[in-house]
């Protein structure tokens, strides 16, 4: 079965996020004064063949650990959907 797994890769809270900072300042300058914080991460959508949801999740989890995220500076979260 094919699953669409969404991976959110975000910088760890303790790590500086220069990109988020720059976007934050830009939004403020543009007049969005209610903006409090911006962080920019990656969204990786992986379409993968798996026996079931759990299997798909564990496959993508391994991909994250080995390639998609760098645990030194990043956290990741998975969300498994059925392929649409």
């Amino acid at each position, binding site marked *: 079965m094919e699953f669409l797994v969404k991976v959110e890769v975000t910088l760890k809270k303790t790590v500086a996020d*220069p*990109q988020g900072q720059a*976007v934050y300042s*830009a939004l403020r*300058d543009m007049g969005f004064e209610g903006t409090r914080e911006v962080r*920019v991460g990656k969204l990786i959508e992986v379409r993968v063949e798996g026996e079931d949801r759990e299997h798909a999740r564990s496959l993508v989890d391994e991909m994250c650990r080995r390639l998609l995220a760098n645990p030194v500076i990043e956290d990741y979260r998975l969300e498994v959907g059925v392929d649409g």
Partner: protein
Amino acid sequence: MRFGVVIFPGSNCDSDCYHALKDVMGLEAEYIWHKSTDIRGFDAIILPGGFSYGDYLRAGAIARFSPVMKAVEKFARGGGLVLGICNGFQILLEAGLLPGAMMRNDCLQFRCHYVEVKVENAETPFTGECSPGQILRIPIAHGEGNYFAEPRVLEELKRNQQIVLRYHGSNPNGSVDNIAAVINREGNVMGMMPHPERCCEGVLGGTDGKFIFQSMMKYIGWSLPLNPATQGRCGSRES
């Protein structure tokens, strides 16, 4: 003839453009700070290369909201010449002054080397000194030069001869239809990925960049017949 070179936070080819215009081409050039809102008195505006706002989010996305960009838009709407080089091109796209969008190079890497580009339209204010089909050797230096436009827009660009330069030989970034430079419909705003300011002196390995600036000089000289000093210096357009 006054050229204005805009400095955005993170611009890094501003002084190269200034040097090429002033010290090499002998033109009058001045810097324009990104916070200025008044750019009256300039004959042409250059948006230089670099990494405005670190190119964070998307190249040029934040810079287009700089105060100076409102003035640049107005200047462009009034027919003033605007040349965006590399990051400047990206800013013009983000600002909607040129159609299309810039994406990451298809090789996913920054590329810095000489390329050959073919002059597809030699009738613009930026290429008037070139002959049609002429091949120019100009360096590129970018990570996001993969120009994209929807098929409909692309058709329009072709129909109106808005594609000014195309990569010749190999395409370094995957841009659609090998596009290296486009001009707006009105013909006064151009964006190009190669850096003409990097090849205006023999000691740097090439002088083809001069064609671009000379074309602009000629055009301005020709379109400002009221200024005898300028006209005398640049001669007529036919020469």
